[in-house]
């Protein structure tokens, strides 16, 4: 499960280049910031604000890329590049991927 969600090479490179302790701090920061980014995404969808929707998806993609969270980054990128959708299917998919991704990242912190 973990392997499919997190690109091992990217995460290892991050820890090697920046230090394991800092990488852990960065994961912590992402996990505490992510709920806010998801809230912004949903608020933009409800408020029909295409700019903010794109920007929120962009931020999630950008952070997912830092940790090699491929599935999360791919879904967020697809949302960033698409029009503001009529229904919240894409958001629900992103939520689900994030739930798994965050679990995988937390597991990594306790390795």
């Amino acid at each position, binding site marked *: 499960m973990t392997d499919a969600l997190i690109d091992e090479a990217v995460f290892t490179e991050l820890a090697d280049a920046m230090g394991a302790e800092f990488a852990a701090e960065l994961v912590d*920061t992402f996990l505490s910031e992510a709920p806010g980014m998801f809230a912004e995404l949903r608020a933009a969808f409800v408020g029909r604000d295409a700019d*903010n929707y794109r920007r929120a998806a962009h931020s999630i993609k950008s952070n997912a890329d*830092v940790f090699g969270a491929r599935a999360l980054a791919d879904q967020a990128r697809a949302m960033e590049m698409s029009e503001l959708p009529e229904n919240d299917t894409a958001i629900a998919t992103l939520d689900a991927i994030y739930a798994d991704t965050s679990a995988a990242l937390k597991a990594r912190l306790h390795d």
Partner: protein
Amino acid sequence: MTESQAHLLIVDDNKVNRLLMSRSVEMLGHRASLAENGRVAMQMLQTGRYDVLLLDIEMPEMDGFEVLEALKADPTLRDLPVIVTSSVEGLDNIVRCIELGAEDYIPKPVNKTLLNARLNSSLEKKRLYDEQKKLLQRFATDEVAKDLNEQGFTIGGRRMTATVLFCDIRDFTALSEDMSPEATIELLNTFYTLMFDAVTGHGGIVSLMVGDGLMALFGAPQALENSAQSAASAAQEMRDMMGVLNQERDAMGESMIKVGFGIATGEVVAGYAGTDARATYTCIGKTVNLAARLEAHTKVAGHTILCDLQTQRALVDGEGSAPLSPVQFKGFSEALDVFAL
């Protein structure tokens, strides 16, 4: 490490990105300040000094494109190197950054080795810019340096109204024959120091120094309220200072130095003339010729400062000048009024 330490401003709305970037920058031996959007960054740039800007594109309030536009429009910030760090989608967005003046583009997540290479290259460019600016201040007057900074350098001129002042030392060649080379240069240096102070003190620029003479411009490149009056005041100040210098020389048994001034006001074509490799700010036109002729005429007329009608009319104390008989100057179709100050 501290010697090459640079101060960077990281602009990013995302906390994870800010943390990662600042940590990378600090690990490379530099100092980082943080701004969470473009508006905050522009405020920080007004008060703080930074060597390089690391700029995100997608940001609320003021995005990266708007920051690049604002920097471009500000002469004091235009030369600040900007490295765009973004995961923005689409090649056209990256092209837009470069077109708006960004130095470089690094995709996110930022690779530390790549960042180091790009940073060093940008810092080197910044160092060269700063050096250029210093050189410019040394070899050009403040006004020309300011004009170059604001308008940029282009060969070509503008028509404008200005006052031209010529001055040189009478019979300098004969004078210098009895002097050692060192004494000659020292005398010239004293002369130039006095002349430069008087010219710049009245808002003019020395555009040409040739042997024992110089040409100064008033009202170009920067406009003056009354360029004729400024030039006349500068000439009078120079004449007074030469009087003081001559008293000193007389006391030491040295020969007196005679100086002549010619002032003319009118339309000139002013701008940078030369080649792209070597150019000078100068002006040409009938007004310049007239000032040179007036200066040469001081020998004949027996007055130290001569000016033309247009200069005389603009003087605050125009009546204080003495009208001389009109002169037919070489290159001019009719006889012109001449005034002694």
